[in-house]
């Protein structure tokens, strides 16, 4: 067996990364979307609702595909990097937009 072969044994590290960091990543992406298309006229704006609905497909995809990471620590590492990038994007859009 190759050293880099994937197995399902180390699922916990990957799944926990996808659950926690996957959610914060999704939050950053959907909030970016929500801010770009915001109307700001009412609490339950359609744009806000679409941004809410987008959480499900993105988060689910991350959860489903996280087992392709080679190991738990790698999943945490890559998702942390993705988080930093996504939150930086969100912050940038907020700063430009205001």
């Amino acid at each position: 067996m190759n050293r880099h072969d994937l197995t399902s044994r180390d699922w916990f590290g990957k799944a926990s990364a996808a659950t926690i960091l996957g959610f914060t990543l999704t939050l950053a992406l959907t909030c970016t979307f929500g801010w770009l298309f915001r109307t700001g006229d009412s609490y339950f704006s359609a744009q806000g609702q679409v941004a809410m609905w987008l959480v499900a497909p993105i988060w689910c995809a991350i959860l489903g595909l996280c087992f392709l990471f080679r190991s738990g620590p790698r999943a945490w590492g890559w998702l942390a990097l993705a988080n930093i990038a996504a939150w930086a994007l969100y912050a940038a859009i907020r700063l430009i937009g205001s």
Partner: protein
Amino acid sequence: MRTDIVKTYKDIHSWVGIIAGLALFIAFYAGAITMFEDPLNRWASAPTSITPAPSLARTPELVDKVLRAHPEARAAYTVNFDVGPEMPARVSWTKGNRRVPGPTWLASLASDGSLQVVQQQASPVANFIDVLHEQIGLPFPHNVSMPIMGVISLLYAVAIISGVICLLPSLVKDLFALRFSRNVKRMWLDLHNVLGLFSLPFHIIMAVTAVIFAFHDEIYTAQGAVQQIGAPKLERPARPDRNAPPPALEAVTGTLPPLELQRRIAQQAPGFRLHTLTYEYNAKEGRHGAIAGYDPRYGTRAPVYGLGEIDTRTGAITGADYMPGRQDAWFATVTSFFALHFGSFGGTPVRWSYFVLGLAGAFLFYSGNLLWIESRRKKERKSGAVMQTRATRILGALTVGVPLGCVAGISLTIAAAKWLPPTSPDLPAWHGRIYYCVFLAAIVWALVRGAARSGASLLWVAAAATAAIPVSSFASTLLGTGWSDNGATQLVDAVALVGTAGFVVMARAAHNRARHGPRDSVWAITAAATT
């Protein structure tokens, strides 16, 4: 594709499937039934003593009498355009809302023109099944059940993705190969694959929407918190205060009568069939109205109806965000998510397809469990365990007990609607007691007797419980304790009869397999007996 990826995802698929499968069976079976909530409500609701509804033209007279005699109706009363067994009155008002149903009063005009008010006795059984579906059968309060249901939905999404990944390499080879041969396990696997793949879009929709339905509030809160950093505060609209003192009579009169409003709404929204019109009043907005209706050309936000807001003094549509065919692209997008989950588009054919897809989904989870047990059994056998391990035995028993307990429990609690006293205020609790007693008894029976022995007998129980639905219709009418009306309710009886036949066929097959199938199977009586 790399074999290690396929192998990894095969493991993931079996594990998430086995954890979520039984809960999803309940969600899908109960969900399939909610496709016909309206016919079921008609079937289960006792006729009221109320005088037949007056015509729409005569409704202003009724409304006037209601508003004078019942100030509590002034803040919100509803004029019903479709009158039937589940809503027999032209005018009604309620103390509850969608999440917390409260008592509803019905008003009509007696033959001498005097006001007649009775409390509604609509059967709660369809609502009970709906909640069962939402909470994957958990009897806990909403705020406890929903997060659990959300986790199950996430596992379901992972099961879908992993299932597709491990099917991909052999897709072309296996897809159209339904091998009904001596290898029973192969046949089950083929069936599981074909069913899963052909209903894949349906399952993706259900997983994604279920995650949102479960975590809706939490996601909103999280997104709201992020967006509000350094931004002007967005006010969440206040819920109407149900305990506010009733408004004065003058404040709520001066609105257009229902017939005139119906005419004006039809002019603005042709094709929109008005179902209800609610006249509302609060101190902030004054007189206004909410309308609910259906347009077969568009999907709806609620399971059956789309919603709109009107000015009850002019008939102008003031809010069309949730109105079929009148939404902008953004709102139409949001509505499509709801419509895709509820099957509330395309009318009756789509409802029937969702019913079939829901049952097929339930079967998919059942067959998945079955495959897991059989392959686990094989592995154990190879590693030398002659007897089945306790885990395999318990899981085998649960795979039989949970689905069949759910089926039998739902059928019996529906049938009970025609026998329980319709005036009892305790009705929802009784439906719960009946369901959970049957459900738990089936699980205990399966655990005690083992999968093989209980499988056939519980299928007979499911068949009998389902047969109890048309039998109740017939017997209770004959004895004069129940009721029967034609049309939609005969559909309920007919579907139950088909279901009964299906369970009888399955019971016979299970019986045969237990006696004459492979000896070393979880489903063989001899194997069960040795442990």
